[in-house]
């Protein structure tokens, strides 16, 4: 449909624009650091030939605008240089940690949204009751409590006191798996995943719960719901087939957006639980001044977020038959 297409086209161009701006910002920040501009890519402890190779690859002896062009082309190809610490190519480091972040984020989000949709619908159904009056502040409390604090409480209770779950990492030390899939499916991995995912889910469910409740309440007041009642349709059908279906639209969009945003916020959960993901890598790299890794981690996080914003728009346009140009 022409409307949907032009809407998505404009959103896509917007996405590309934002990505470009973020990349440029990244370039400027790391170049404008005090001291040797080379320090963004070259650690004095690298061997001379590695230093030479990096110099050439990133055009570090060229004027600034050439460096910028080289930077952009490298970026697009996923080339970030070498980690100061592990000497590995940064892209390799990223490949190791990105999946962990995705697994954690997705499992937490799915859980949070499943609980949130049901909880929100229940709150809407219990409108005007005691349960609603106290339920909402309770949900707000989950968003007000700092994630890392809840994580610490969870660790103190479930890990250090009850010993039900391990306290750090994604796998037990010394374990090895044939493929990444085997690792993810292993019981050990799941045990490690539980606390961080639950803690993150507890924080994340606030949004879908309140959003679902609020949209359900709006939808329930709409004329077409009244018309359903006039037709004598059973209340359950009205709630599920009509009200919830209409109310889900914003929630699904929020889900896609949520992937983007929580990837950015994962930093905290990953740090508290020492989960080897993008966020933790970024924090450690910044603290240790491992700039190539820091750049790459930051950029990847930004990319996921921006792309997921676009996916959210795509999803919405597919689900809502009425989407038009001006969607604010």
């Amino acid at each position: 449909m022409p409307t949907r297409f032009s809407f998505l086209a404009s959103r896509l161009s917007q996405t590309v624009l934002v990505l470009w701006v973020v990349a440029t910002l990244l370039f400027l920040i790391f170049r404008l650091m005090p001291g040797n501009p080379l320090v963004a890519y070259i650690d004095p402890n690298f061997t001379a030939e590695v230093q030479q190779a990096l110099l050439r690859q990133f055009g570090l002896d060229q004027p600034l605008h050439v460096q910028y062009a080289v930077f952009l082309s490298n970026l697009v190809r996923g080339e970030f240089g070498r980690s100061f610490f592990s000497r590995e190519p940064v892209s390799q480091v990223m490949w190791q940690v990105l999946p962990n972040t995705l697994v954690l984020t997705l499992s937490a989000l799915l859980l949070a949204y499943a609980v949130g949709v049901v909880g929100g619908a229940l709150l809407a159904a219990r409108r005007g009751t005691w349960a609603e009056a106290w339920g909402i502040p309770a949900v707000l409390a989950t968003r007000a409590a700092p994630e890392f604090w809840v994580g610490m409480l969870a660790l103190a209770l479930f890990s250090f006191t009850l010993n039900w779950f391990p306290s750090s990492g994604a796998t037990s030390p010394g374990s090895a798996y044939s493929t990444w899939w085997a690792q993810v499916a292993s019981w050990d991995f799941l045990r490690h995943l539980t606390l961080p995912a639950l803690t993150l889910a507890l924080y994340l469910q606030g949004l879908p719960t309140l959003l679902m409740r609020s949209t359900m309440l709006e939808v329930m007041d709409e004329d077409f719901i009244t018309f359903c009642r006039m037709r004598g349709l059973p209340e359950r059908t009205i709630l599920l087939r009509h009200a919830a279906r209409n109310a889900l639209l914003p929630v699904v969009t929020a889900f896609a957006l949520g992937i983007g945003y929580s990837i950015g916020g994962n930093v905290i959960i990953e740090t508290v639980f020492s989960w080897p993901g993008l966020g933790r890598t970024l924090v450690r790299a910044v603290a240790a001044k491992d700039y190539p890794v820091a750049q790459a981690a930051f950029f990847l996080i930004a990319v996921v977020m921006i792309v997921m914003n676009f996916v959210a728009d795509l999803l919405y346009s597919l689900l809502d038959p009425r989407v038009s140009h001006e969607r604010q």
Partner: protein
Amino acid sequence: MSGSERAAALPQWTRAAATWRDALLVTWAVARRDRFALAGLIIYAVLLAVALAAPALAPYNPLDLNYRPDGDVAANEAPSLSHWLGTTNLGRDVFSQVMFGTRVALVVGFVAAFGVVVLGTLVGLVAGYYSGWVDTILMRLADVAFGIPFLPMAIVLVAFLGPSIWNTVLVMTLLLWRDTGRVIRAQVLSLRTRSYVEAARVLGASHVRTMFVHIAPNVLPLSFLYGSLAVGWAILTEASISFLGFGDPNVISWGFMLQDAYNSQAMARHAFYWFVPPGLCIMLAVMAGFFIGRGYEELLFPRLRRR
């Protein structure tokens, strides 16, 4: 409710908060109707009182090491009469740290919230009023701000600008104005076409005057609403940045306390007295902000009236 829906639903309160006195009256009305908002206001009042009286309330200097009578450092002590919330692993008094942490939280919270709201309101006003290419540029800027993952950016910037409390505030202002800006803009768009604005222009008011004297007072209620939410976010953000190790090392904030506790294995030692209070304080402060914001929202945009 989208920003434009909010703007369209704004009823007679547009005039109500035109002056500061009216803004206070609105706050009072909010407190009376919504008991949770009242609780929020009370919490803020208590926090403010604690922050102001911290030196008097705190029995010790939060940075001082404390010693037992026998000369050893009073490290990792459980709560007692001499140390109400016990001591850290270095022998510092936890209760005093919580007291002084209140100051940091409130200063950061209010200054950052102020900055966010002022910047957001300005952008919203200008973008909504002028439209055209000014609007497009500002909204593209907002898109970029939305596209930057907040905490990672804050970490990177603070790491480079230096870990000081004011850099944290600066970063928050630079990145968090976007939500407020978007909503204010939507409201200005709807207000721009109202007759009193046109009347002002016809009578010769300049653009600037129309914006600030005629339109601005009517978006103030919305600014206050976002302001109260922003205080909470700011406190949380400062705590997060401190927890991650990028906070000001010279400032004892609640976030710093949590980082300290975490790094000293307080959880493994079940030192609940150390890490529960600061987190609880953060939670209460942020919740108070939410409740007040919600109370405002119900008053300004009553759409789900209970019978």
